[in-house]
């Protein structure tokens, strides 16, 4: 190939198309090299801090590793043990699924309701949008979790209010029947970020649709059901996926408020994984759990994607 190239160049004196192509190619190569060089710090971070640990955890999931001594290869033992002989794995899966499937729809409902309310463009909506967004900025933080523990504690504000209404309070966090709801309420309360995304979605809906509807005499509820909701489905879809995945990985709040208790009623998957890894130093086992979680999240995401063709409405596809 190179030889032929040379011959061509000798035979034809003026720079032919081919030569220009070569120059172009060289330039393109240079440009992409420059690109890589510029993002190299990020790439490096990705390979060293993200990809490396991912591969390491995959390897460790086939080992017995306690951090203090070196890992020993045990094949699929961890996976077999988790899936067939670990009652707490089942407990944690059930707690997590209940949490995700209760908290996510409620959170989205709240976010959507408030977004619709704030989309009217009345005075002061900007202020309230900000106020309502604040919980989701500070929500993951330690301080809020501690506040929550106080609020729902035995002598907390919630019980004080109930007391003044003549209702006997209870220890919300210490009661196996209510502890999970305390966490669900906390997470629903942090509806700010899906709300902002809904707001953006609502502003994208062309006003002429609403004008046409009002000319036809459609009421507010009808407009909402027939125009707003269908036009918003891509945004709902996006929020649903993000919040579902986030729900599966909930850790901070549960770790700080209930630590999985009482009686494992709030033992979320991530908590159990953490307990195995850092309290009992069963790193191999915990790594295998992490990979099972990945598969689980992938399956649920795929299911949501599959159903999306039935209910998500894309304008660009002519309505389907």
């Amino acid at each position, binding site marked *: 190939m190179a030889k032929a190239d040379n011959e061509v160049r000798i035979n034809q004196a003026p720079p032919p198309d081919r030569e220009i192509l070569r120059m172009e190619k060289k330039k393109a190569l240079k440009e992409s*090299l*420059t690109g890589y*060089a*510029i993002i*190299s*710090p990020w*790439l*490096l971070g990705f390979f*060293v801090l993200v990809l490396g640990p991912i591969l390491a955890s995959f390897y460790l999931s086939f080992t017995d590793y306690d*951090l*203090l*001594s070196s890992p020993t290869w045990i094949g699929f033992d961890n996976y077999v043990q988790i899936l067939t002989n670990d009652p707490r794995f089942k407990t944690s899966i059930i707690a997590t699924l209940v949490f995700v499937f209760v908290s996510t729809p409620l959170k989205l409902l709240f976010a959507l309701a408030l977004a619709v309310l704030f989309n009217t463009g009345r005075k002061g909506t900007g202020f309230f949008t900000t106020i309502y967004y604040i919980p989701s900025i500070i929500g993951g933080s330690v301080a809020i979790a501690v506040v929550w*523990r106080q609020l729902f*504690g*035995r002598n907390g504000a919630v019980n004080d209010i109930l007391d003044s209404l003549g209702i006997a309070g209870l*220890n919300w*966090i*210490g*009661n*196996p029947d209510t502890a999970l709801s305390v966490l669900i309420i906390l997470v629903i309360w942090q509806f700010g970020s899906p709300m902002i995304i809904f707001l953006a979605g609502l502003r994208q809906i062309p006003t002429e649709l609403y004008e046409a509807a009002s000319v036809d005499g459609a009421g507010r509820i009808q407009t909402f059901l027939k125009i707003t909701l269908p036009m918003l489905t891509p945004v709902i879809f996006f929020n649903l996926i993000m919040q579902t995945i986030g729900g599966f990985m909930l850790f901070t709040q549960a770790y700080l408020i209930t630590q999985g*208790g*009482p*009686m*494992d009623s709030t033992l979320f998957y991530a908590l159990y994984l953490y*307990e195995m890894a*850092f*309290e*009992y*130093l069963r790193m191999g086992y915990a790594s295998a759990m992490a990979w099972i979680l990945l598969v689980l999240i992938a399956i649920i995401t795929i299911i949501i994607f599959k159903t999306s063709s039935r209910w998500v409405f894309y304008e660009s596809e002519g309505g389907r």
Partner: protein
Amino acid sequence: MKMNKLKAVVMMFLLVGLVTIMVACGGNEDSNANVNNGADNSADPETNEANNGDSGENNSAAGDEEDVTIRVAWWGGQERHDMTIQAIELFEAEYPNITVEPEYTSWDGYWERLSTQAAGNNLPDIINMDNSKLMEYSSRDLLVDLQPLIDDGHINMDDVEDVYQDINVAEDGTVMGISLGANALGIAENKDLLAEHDINLEPGYTYDDMIDAMHKIQDNTDEEFFGFDFGNSEFEMFFVYARQHGQSVFNPEGDGLGFEEGTLVEFFDMVQTMVNEEAAASHDIMMDYIDGGNSMLGEGKAAMNMTASNQIIGIQQSSDMEIGLNVMPSIEGGEDGNWIRPSMSFSISSHSEQHEASAKFIDFFTNNLEVNEILQADRGVPVSSVVREHLAGIVDGATAETFAYLELVEDYTSPADPLSPAGESEVRGSFQRVVETLKYDQATPEEATQQFMQEAQAILQ
């Protein structure tokens, strides 16, 4: 021109990338060395200052010795942190060539931090160990044998009785740690509350006497009263209970359990009945107090509290009622179940390169009178008889109570069990979960016993 500029930029980025790669991929030891060097340098000014300040008196200690830095890790509450840091300052004044970098956290994050450091070959020089973890660390060669450092005089153990140090010595004579103080399990009691209800439980009282006393207060008080506070220490309590039956939680080999099923059923039955009959605080109330960092006993909401003797120092500080210590309840015709626990110790990690400096630090904590005055026996009654006698004359209040208690409890002790096996923390976790279901009345004592024994045996195998 433009091209050159671009070239320069590209070259720069490539260079930065390359250097980062080289640094990142450099061996572990290299990066450790960097860290240590950095620490040395940053610490230099301080050391020099100390040198100048003490130039008169401490020349003998300083000598021409090389400047070294040692890292010391411990867990505890704010009180202990303050006292230990003060003690470290005293040490640094005494040994100007040694800089001590403290690494302290609460109990919760402590072992997680240590195990990650162990995995990174970066353990601190001196580790505050707990008896329950000693085996785990020692069996993985993470601790240095201290016997040579004792033999060559760096750690003076002349005044330390064997009873305090035996537990830190492995079968083959390896010294895994030096005890930081002795305590024993016991019952902290609210003396004011007991006196108010005319209750006097002399040592030798039984579990039934204790439960009766709780009922008596419960029946005669209008205040909120929860009775007995297990203090989340049911596992420790069963340790004593099993020993009182001539059994033990773990078998001597550490690969199984060492008690009979019936013993645990009895114990679980007692726990459950106490909670159900309101002779003991329910689980949610107990955890509410613990999570909030409060003491039921100190507030007068509980009359007795399962605890370790040194902990009453903290309880007393937050209470205006008088807190005392009593021995654990006995079993009629049973054996002595308690034992003197030098539960905390200092060990030198095998990642340390400063064995001598670390040994000096441990020796300082063990034998120096002044530093023990600062530390206030917070980690337990000092193990050196000289220090103990010196302190006994000075301390008062709750600290004095712990000194007196350790003498009292001696009559109720039997030789300590061997150190707990490496799976202890997981077995404890299982025990606590089972106790939770019991206290919430979700399992019978028989079911709970079955579940715990199955889980524990699987863990220990």
